[in-house]
């Protein structure tokens, strides 16, 4: 066991928690209307509570527990049985097993929270809660097993996903799209843009996401070493490149760059570099940043408008699309010179790896889309996913939570 590695993964775990609350909560919370901000904060907060418990009770075991035919972990580690101070060398030989477990818990938490962006401002709280629990159990946990679990079938095929481009972003982003389509548009959508009620909150969230993402990506090295350093540097570089590129596109396209654009671009950069950060070098990370900004901008500001679905806060446009870009980019730019435990990508002559990445992508998209569809239908039948129009107009804060975010008169 190594105290430096342990210190790093402990703080990285805390950083990933910070990404969800307050990071993502404020990023999303600032984007909605005043009457719905608490609903976003509530959804993020309760996800942290619910998935933390789901994870220690059985989720971790499903995802990382002893393999069952490559498709799921068994329940042997349910309730953290056997998950203690001794390292598990399959996952991380130099830190306590429980540290690896809690680091992964934070990933399991943020993933369903990302989906909130798609159904913001119009779901019933109980329906959201049930959906989230089912999704975490039947989408996230299996997928994490396939890609990261010892014995997982995609891992066995050699799929590369350093910190969750597939497991976290593509899975949540695709599910977000399916939900947005199934739920329909918000009342009043299209008549004119629904404006962010507090952009400073959104910037606060974006900045905390950037900060916390160092834990997410560089923490995924599971050690404080040169690989962590590479992940840290590539993360920062891709993010900076994507944020700046987004601003430049806007400048050219609309006449002014916006802070919402830069923040959105930065998050897209973070997403895209996630699967790649431990496999590519910083200069290629810079290219990934530029590419993802171009692609996501097109998705969010051009295509979404044309297709007309209401992905309220662009969970699909940023995480789904960005994760896809990153997964493919990993198949292009990965090099063994950066990470001997990785693989070379297409640009380094390895077509096979590129194929594996594409396969992973297709599998994940199909799996997440189908499962989300099924879970939606179940929850919709049992509880009803969408709030009544009257309540949507009054706002979710008052109608789902009996609270108001701000006082007007005191």
């Amino acid at each position: 066991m190594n105290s430096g590695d342990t210190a790093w993964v402990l703080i990285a775990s805390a950083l990933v928690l910070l990404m969800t609350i307050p990071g993502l909560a404020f990023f999303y919370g600032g984007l909605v209307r005043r009457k719905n901000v608490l609903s976003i904060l509530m959804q993020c907060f309760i996800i942290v509570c619910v998935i933390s418990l789901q994870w220690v009770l059985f989720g971790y075991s499903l995802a990382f527990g002893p393999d069952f035919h490559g498709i799921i972990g068994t329940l042997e580690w349910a309730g953290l049985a056997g998950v203690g101070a001794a390292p598990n060398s399959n996952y991380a030989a130099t830190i306590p097993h429980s540290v690896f477990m809690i680091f992964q818990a934070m990933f399991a938490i943020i993933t369903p929270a990302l989906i909130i962006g798609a159904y913001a401002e119009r779901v019933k709280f109980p329906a959201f809660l049930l959906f989230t629990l089912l999704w975490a159990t039947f989408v996230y946990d299996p997928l994490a097993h396939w890609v990261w679990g010892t014995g997982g079938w995609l891992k066995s095929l050699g799929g590369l996903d350093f910190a969750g481009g597939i497991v976290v972003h593509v899975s949540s982003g695709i599910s977000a799209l399916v939900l947005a389509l199934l739920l329909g548009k918000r009342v009043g959508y299209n008549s004119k843009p629904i404006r962010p009620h507090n952009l400073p909150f959104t910037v606060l969230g974006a900045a905390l996401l950037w900060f916390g993402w160092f834990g997410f990506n560089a923490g995924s090295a599971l050690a404080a070493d040169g690989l962590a350093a590479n992940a840290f540097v590539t993360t920062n570089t891709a993010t900076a490149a994507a944020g700046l590129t987004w601003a430049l596109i806007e400048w050219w396209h609309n006449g002014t760059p916006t802070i919402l654009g830069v923040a959105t671009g930065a998050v897209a950069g973070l997403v895209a570099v996630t699967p790649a950060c431990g496999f590519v070098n910083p200069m290629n990370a810079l290219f990934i940043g530029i590419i993802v900004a171009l692609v996501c901008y097109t998705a969010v500001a051009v295509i979404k408008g044309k297709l007309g679905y209401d992905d309220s806060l662009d969970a699909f446009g940023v995480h789904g699309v960005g994760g896809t870009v990153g997964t493919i980019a990993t198949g292009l730019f990965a090099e063994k010179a950066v990470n001997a435990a990785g693989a070379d990508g297409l640009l380094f002559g390895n077509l096979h790896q590129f194929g594996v990445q594409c396969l992973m992508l297709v599998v994940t998209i199909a799996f997440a889309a189908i499962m989300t569809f099924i879970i939606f239908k179940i929850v919709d039948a049992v509880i009803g996913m969408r709030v009544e129009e009257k309540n949507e107009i009054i706002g979710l804060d008052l109608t789902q939570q009996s609270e108001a975010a701000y006082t007007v008169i005191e």
Partner: protein
Amino acid sequence: MKLVIAIIQPHKLDAVKRELEAVEVNLMTVANVLGQGRQKGVTEIYRGAKEAGGLLNKVRLDIAVNEAFVEPTIAAITKGAHTGSVGDGKIFVVELAECVRISSGERGGAAIG
């Protein structure tokens, strides 16, 4: 000249503005207000302490118009804000004694539009 004061539901503001434009009433002053009306507010709860039916968010429009525009203005607001249920709001009309455009110093009906 009259000053037309309308209290409407916030989400109807755009529709009302569209209707007003249709009758060529383009100038107005808008404010956030809270209303206590026949529509019941929603109960709020803070650490177990309940507050029944607080005030509701409303939007207030102040529109100064010449006589000929009074009825069209009322009709346009009504059209844009109407749903037929409690809470739609009210329109109040007040006599306007004078109107001044600051930039030009114009007065009366000429200053209104």
